[in-house]
């Protein structure tokens, strides 16, 4: 991991491309201004960066591109407030500050040799895309893969077109892509919450690593459903969100847990396993 001397200092990155994804989300492709930093910059799926726009502020954003691509990375950003609104106004050629990557990321080494089940709801697709693309880039290390992408409506499905376009080649590679909406009358595809489509997956519960990301209320039902189907709780992983100002376990905003088990989402997470999730009050 690259470590600048001042941990809060950022590297200048330039926006290469901006793709609008939905009404509120855009995908940004960045390149490090200094190529030598870019070439040495590595991250794990599930980690995040602190993205800053001097004069406006700094926000944590998951990296959503494949960690195999070097010198570039992608962020999928929702226009949610002050900073992200400003980021949304950026055009190719504009610059931002980046520091990181931060967080533990998904334990990809533990996933190797297993089937993968990725379940994303809403913005959850952003960090899971990184896992998914990583798995595609290292296809031989994994068994069957299913990805479930859920949102309220079709137009809100993140990376809907990208996943759609992959469908054919995916099938050839034993990858099942399920996209579902919960509240879209006009949506022609699957309907209902992600948990309702678990019978359509092509993975073996006995030998599957599960990665989940979505709104907090999704986890409980998802856990129950997975457990009922015999997925091994030791191999269920979740990535969560909290307020963060530093990303390195100092500012205190992302604290979770109790006196007996005190953690910081930015350092001890954002990826947690099933047992952390159920035993840490306030984590779900």
């Amino acid at each position, binding site marked *: 991991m690259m*470590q600048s*001397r*001042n*941990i*809060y*200092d*950022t590297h*200048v990155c330039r926006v290469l491309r901006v793709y609008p994804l939905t009404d509120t989300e855009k995908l940004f492709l960045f390149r490090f201004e200094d190529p030598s930093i870019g070439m040495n910059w590595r991250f794990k799926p599930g980690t995040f960066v602190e993205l*800053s726009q*001097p*004069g*406006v*502020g*700094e926000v944590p954003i998951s990296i959503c591109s494949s960690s195999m691509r070097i010198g570039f990375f992608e962020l999928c950003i*929702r226009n*949610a*407030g002050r900073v*992200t609104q400003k980021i949304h106004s950026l055009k190719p050629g504009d*610059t*931002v*500050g980046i520091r990181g990557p931060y967080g533990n990321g998904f334990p990809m080494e533990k996933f190797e040799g297993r089937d993968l089940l990725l379940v994303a709801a809403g913005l959850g697709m952003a960090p899971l895309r990184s896992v998914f693309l990583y798995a595609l880039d290292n296809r031989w290390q994994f068994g069957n893969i299913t990805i479930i992408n859920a949102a309220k409506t079709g137009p809100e499905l993140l990376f809907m077109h990208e996943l759609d376009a992959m469908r054919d080649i995916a099938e050839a590679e034993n990858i099942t892509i399920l996209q579902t909406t919960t509240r879209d009358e006009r949506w022609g595809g699957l309907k209902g919450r992600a948990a309702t489509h678990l019978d359509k997956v092509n993975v073996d519960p006995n030998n599957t690593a599960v990665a989940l990301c979505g709104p*907090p209320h999704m986890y409980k039902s998802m856990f129950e459903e997975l457990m009922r189907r015999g997925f091994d709780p030791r191999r269920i992983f979740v990535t969560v*969100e*909290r*307020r963060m*100002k*530093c990303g*390195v*376990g*100092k*500012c*205190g*905003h992302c*604290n*979770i*847990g*109790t*006196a*007996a*088990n*005190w953690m910081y989402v930015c350092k001890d997470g954002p990826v947690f396993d099933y047992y952390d999730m159920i035993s840490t*009050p*306030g984590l779900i």
Partner: protein
Amino acid sequence: MRYLKLPHEKRREFLIELKGYGILYAPVSISEKNFDYKKVDDVDTIRFDYNRTVLPPRKYFFPPNETLFKFDKKDCRLIDAYEDPGTFVIFGMHPCDIIGLRVLDSRFIDDQPDTYYKRRREKGIIIGIDCLPDEYCFCNIRDADFADRGFDLFLHELDDGYLIRVGSVMGHKIVDACDHLFEAIKAEDISVMTRKEREKQAMFQHYENWDNLRYLLELQDSHPLWERESEKCISCGNCTLTCPTCRCYDVQDVPELDGNGGKRIRFWDSCQYREHGLVAGGHNFRDTKLDRFKNRYQCKNAYCETMTISYCVGCGRCTQFCPTGINYRKNLMEIRGDE
């Protein structure tokens, strides 16, 4: 360890000597009943009998308000705005505060060290002094009533002077440079010191072992105390802002009128404020005063691994400086089922 004696009549000279190392900060009286660390010009204003300062000494390493960076929007680069305070001396730190600072070190100087804190930490000379507990102190329970490291010099009051423990290379240098002020320790000095230690121990009001507290806090999550006590809270944040081990901060960008320049500042935050757990979209992970109130008790009683003690060092500030008189120690004892 090296031990020396500083006779009372040499104290003043010693303090003036200390000023030679940089700005001298020491406890002084700031109002009728309160003390704080302040820059000291006249060493006679130093209060040796203070109980506790309003703000903990962390303010010299982790300032309440500090500029991290300056920037110019045009090239998107951040320019480190660390201001070197030069060498400075903090005189009069009590053991709990010395240990509190080491607790802070464990968070700020880890594998990703906070460079601002670390650079200042390297500039600070710490002279500790022993104290007598009052009704708010429970550092003994927290294992923070005796500092065995984390200082350059430490003074124990004797009847006619101070027994000094030298705790660092810097400490040796300081005493070497003015060795004419010191005397060798005599046997009776040691017996005076042990007597004083015993007296101090006898002054503490509680002697429980709180090792199980962490688990009880978890188990007692629906104890009626939480409702009752959090209702009294006015969310002023005093308890956290005066705590020697609290370290939450917020960061804000302050742009300039020219539309380009500006600075990124950070300032102390408190988990007792609504904003602390708020994320975009309005979801708040600690939405109620009750949640926030509990959060502090959990955080302060978590286990600081590097120090093998809890994050709370028992200095008593959060109780003394709570405007509505919420008594933190008493509450913890109630959670433990103590009377």
